[in-house]
């Protein structure tokens, strides 16, 4: 038995295929420029069908976490305790990912802490997960 592998659909395939390449992509509406997650079939703000994958930096901010002390699926028991978290993406306002925190003791983290994405291979895909930020944010070229 192995851990659950995401089963993409037509709206989400770009996300999981991007993750498999080590890229974090989220949907942006071409009409109103809203970001959204999870990916779906329309822009939930303006109902445009023109929602496009946009690659983001992978830097994020911790919104909330929970440390699982009970594995509701036995396949996760070997990982206990493990951390599930919600992370706001710094360069895609409105996109908040459910993820795991890795490479950090949760007791040392607080809401608002800077995080960065890492990818854990899972089946044919990879899971975007987050760890405390190590690299400095790149200076934006546009400003």
């Amino acid at each position, binding site marked *: 038995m192995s851990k659950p592998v995401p089963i993409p659909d037509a709206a989400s395939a770009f996300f999981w295929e991007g993750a498999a390449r080590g890229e974090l992509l989220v949907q942006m509406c071409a009409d109103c420029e809203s970001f959204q997650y999870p990916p779906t079939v329309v822009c939930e703000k303006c109902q445009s069908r023109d929602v496009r994958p946009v690659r983001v930096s992978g830097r994020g901010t911790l919104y909330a976490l929970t440390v699982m002390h009970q594995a509701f699926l036995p396949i996760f028991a070997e990982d206990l305790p493990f951390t599930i978290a*919600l992370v706001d993406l710094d360069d895609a306002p409105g996109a908040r990912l459910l993820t795991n925190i890795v490479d950090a003791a949760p007791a040392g983290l607080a809401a608002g802490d800077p995080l960065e994405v890492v990818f854990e291979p899972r089946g044919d895909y990879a899971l975007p997960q987050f760890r405390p930020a190590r690299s400095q944010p790149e200076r934006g070229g546009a400003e």
Partner: protein
Amino acid sequence: MKGARQATVVGVGYSSVHREIGVDTRPLVVDACLGALHDAGLTTSQIDAVFEYPGAGSQIAVNVQRLLGIPDLRAFGDLGGSGPSGLAAAMAAVAAVESGVCDVALVFRSVNREWGQQSGRTEVPPAGNAAQFTLPYGDFGGIIPSIGMKKYRRLAELGGSEEDYGHITLNARQWSAMYERGVLTQPLTMDDYLSSRFIAEPLRLLDCDYPVTGACAAIITTAERARDLAGAAVTVDSVAFGTGSRPDWTFSDDFVFGGTIGCAQHLWATSSVTPAEVDVAELYDGFTHITISWVEALGLCGIGEFGDWVDGGKRIGPGGALPLNTNGGQLASGRLHGLSFLTEAVQQLRGDCGPRQVPGARVAVVANAHGPQCGAMVLTRT
């Protein structure tokens, strides 16, 4: 004014509750429904509508119609999965009765312990559809990880302490000790709460309600019909649903409060009374975070002020200024999944509660669920 068709609650009933696995819920739902009919002074043939909230351990409306020998129904519904828990059945009955679709509605919730038991699964469900964004990360166990994160975020964003949550649990045990159907009736100390094991830290075992097998029921009819019945009727003063924007247990816009704040605003906007007039509150406690959210959303205190307001538990306990969950709620009297908050409110307003009676209670507020599934009701007795 709704006049003669104003919805009223005229009877409530309960089954016994059970902790063991594998109990057949059919005799229990019959017990609860016959109890409610007896309480109302009605017979099965006078029922013309049945509404219930389905789920494992439930019996669908028409199955219970058959078990009770009700000849025909003018309205029925199984309002499950995505609505305000057991209260959803009563909310549908209110709408159906007031609209004239039916006159006498039976509502019930039957639930088994297995349904409340999220652990112990061995097969890995497929991580498709909405689960592709949660399950691969180990986010499983119903809404438990989400509730753990809501507690975390509340403490980070609004402050307060774990003791705030503990007061909900300790309070439930105070009331259950005075309730003939209480299940967990031993008193707890704050140390007991703070040393209970983490499930999804900071969510503790004692933040979670207690799965049981059982049923409860209520009868809802018009004020006009209620006048012909022997028992005291309780008026359904206002009803409101709430979802919040971008409704979801995990990815909603208001993660900490879900739809509770909007639901409460709708509720008071159509009520004849104000939050300051509430005598007793019966607020969902599947998890303590839900109860605290409702206290604040309903305006019983300000947002983020629960910790001061609860006053070490004194405000919500026996003899307090705002008695809360006066039958021990689901934390201490078992998870009958929502409808038992309504039935307890009705009993309080009728003055039927013996040692746990809130003296002179005339206004009750009831709320169910959280996140995208909110529902609430104001009940009055004139």
